[in-house]
């Protein structure tokens, strides 16, 4: 009754789904702890590599060693939040046939998955992301932003990066509507982003021509923009521009998602029962 009376039942449903997903992901304690340990371990390795690279240098491409170390922490911190290593939930639901009931839900298909991912990403952000940065703070001389405006921009950029990453993952997963072998395409699509987004190494360290190439793709808006805002490498008009570029890619990606989804639903053959 209440749902019917509510002025915007879709919004209510969206939040309800997101909340359920949030609570569900909170319960995976062992997995969270194991993931955290893995991230911290690989973070330590990356710190050692950065330290060895810098040697006696104080600054390279506008970054000092403290920035480079902080970079490795932030990169590990966004792995779970943005599902950097891949996300195949939607694909699996197509292969198992669950997609049939999901498409019938009284909430758009994109928004349905967006709500679920919001819950997942929030848990990942708090339990994996924030805790990694706190652990880094204990072990390494990392940088912490000190201007309030920087934190505001950072918050906006974090949300935008998640939206963009979600739309990208959704789009790639939609290939499962066409082929039962979408997994290979997914592996390639997610793998390409590891380097091009600036997750593995700061894009600034690359030669100019390769940086230009990376910035022609949406991937730097998923990782590099947020990290550079955190490190204070993006400020003033450049920062505002970077946020708009993130927004631009989100709009492009969501439009692409809608078109592909519409075509895909017509094509879809539900397997099994």
């Amino acid at each position, binding site marked *: 009754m209440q749902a019917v009376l509510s002025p915007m039942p879709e919004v209510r449903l969206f939040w309800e789904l997101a909340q359920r997903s949030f609570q569900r992901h909170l319960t995976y304690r*062992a997995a969270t702890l*194991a*993931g955290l*340990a*893995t991230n911290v*371990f*690989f973070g*330590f*390795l990356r710190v*050692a*590599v950065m*330290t*060895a*690279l*810098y*040697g006696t*240098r104080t600054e*390279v*491409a506008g970054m000092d060693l403290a920035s480079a170390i902080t970079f490795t922490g932030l990169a590990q911190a966004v792995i779970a939040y943005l599902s950097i290593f891949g996300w195949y939930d939607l694909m699996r639901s197509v292969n198992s046939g669950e997609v049939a009931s999901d498409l019938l839900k009284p909430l758009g298909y994109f928004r349905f998955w967006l709500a679920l991912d919001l819950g997942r990403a929030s848990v990942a952000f708090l339990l994996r992301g924030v805790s990694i940065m706190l652990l880094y703070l204990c072990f390494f001389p990392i940088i912490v932003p000190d201007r309030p405006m920087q934190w505001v921009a950072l918050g906006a950029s974090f949300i935008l990066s998640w939206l963009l990453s979600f739309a990208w993952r959704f789009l790639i997963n939609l290939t499962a509507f066409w082929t039962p*072998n979408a997994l*290979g*395409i997914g*592996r*390639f699509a997610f*793998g*390409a982003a*590891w*380097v*091009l987004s600036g997750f*593995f*190494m700061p894009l600034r*360290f*690359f*030669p100019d021509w*390769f940086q230009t190439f990376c910035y022609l793709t949406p991937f730097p808006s998923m990782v590099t923009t947020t990290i550079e805002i955190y490190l204070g490498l993006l400020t003033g008009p450049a920062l505002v521009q970077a946020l708009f570029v993130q927004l631009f890619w989100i709009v492009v990606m969501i439009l692409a998602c809608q078109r592909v989804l519409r075509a895909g639903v017509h094509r879809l053959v539900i397997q099994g029962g």
Partner: protein
Amino acid sequence: MQRVLFLWGIYWRLIGVQVRAQMQYRMTFILEVLSSGITLFLFFLSIAFVLQRFGNLGGWTLGEIAFLWGTVEFSFGLMDMIFSGFDPATFGKQVRQGLFDQLLLRPVNITTQVMGSEFVLRRLGRIAQGALILGVALNLADIQWTLGKVLYLPLIIAGMICFFGGLFIIGATISFWTIESIEAMNVLTYGSGEMMAYPMHIYPDWLRRTFTYIVPTIFLNYYPALYFLDKPDPLGMPAIVSFISPLVGAGVLVVALRFWRFGIQRYQSTGT
């Protein structure tokens, strides 16, 4: 002898089925080989770019890093193709679902069956990019070839395959008792692979010691690399440790197989 030949025949037949099945989806197979080869190679390309700017990493040039990187990627790829039956991620699932019990009921050696239960052909992508990086290393690094080095190179590859294979088997055995500590084992396996791509002297003491005395990672490609590249040892170990890589690899595999047999004897089904 006859028993060994019999098992060998069974193994090949099991793998033959795997290969034929995977080749049914030829396009998928080609795509997966290409995509994993390319995405993994991008990592190396980044390091090459970064070294262009920085010049060296802990005193090692791009060619020298490529030697470490190429040997470990090539070996890990090969191991991952051959030993994927023991991959804790998939093996653990089989134990939980009771599929492992089916294998135990068959009148054939269980290790052979698990070895033959999975043969991931798409790992060829990783193997190929490892070989390519090794090629880069042989071109860029100024290696003074001697007969000893030529003969030793295949041995260190074999050593690493045994080493990583052993870690997979230990992980698989642990999954008889618990699935939650598998992650810790994965950190040792994949962490070792990651560490071996860079010269081990760059890591903090406690980390390097752990991967010297608890997991003998350092002997598998770092010390052999010092020999191949004629570099001095900054850690001051006896010179002989450059040559024990195949022994260490084989040792880890033997210990792992012992643990595996022990695990099988104690194994109690989940009942599902």
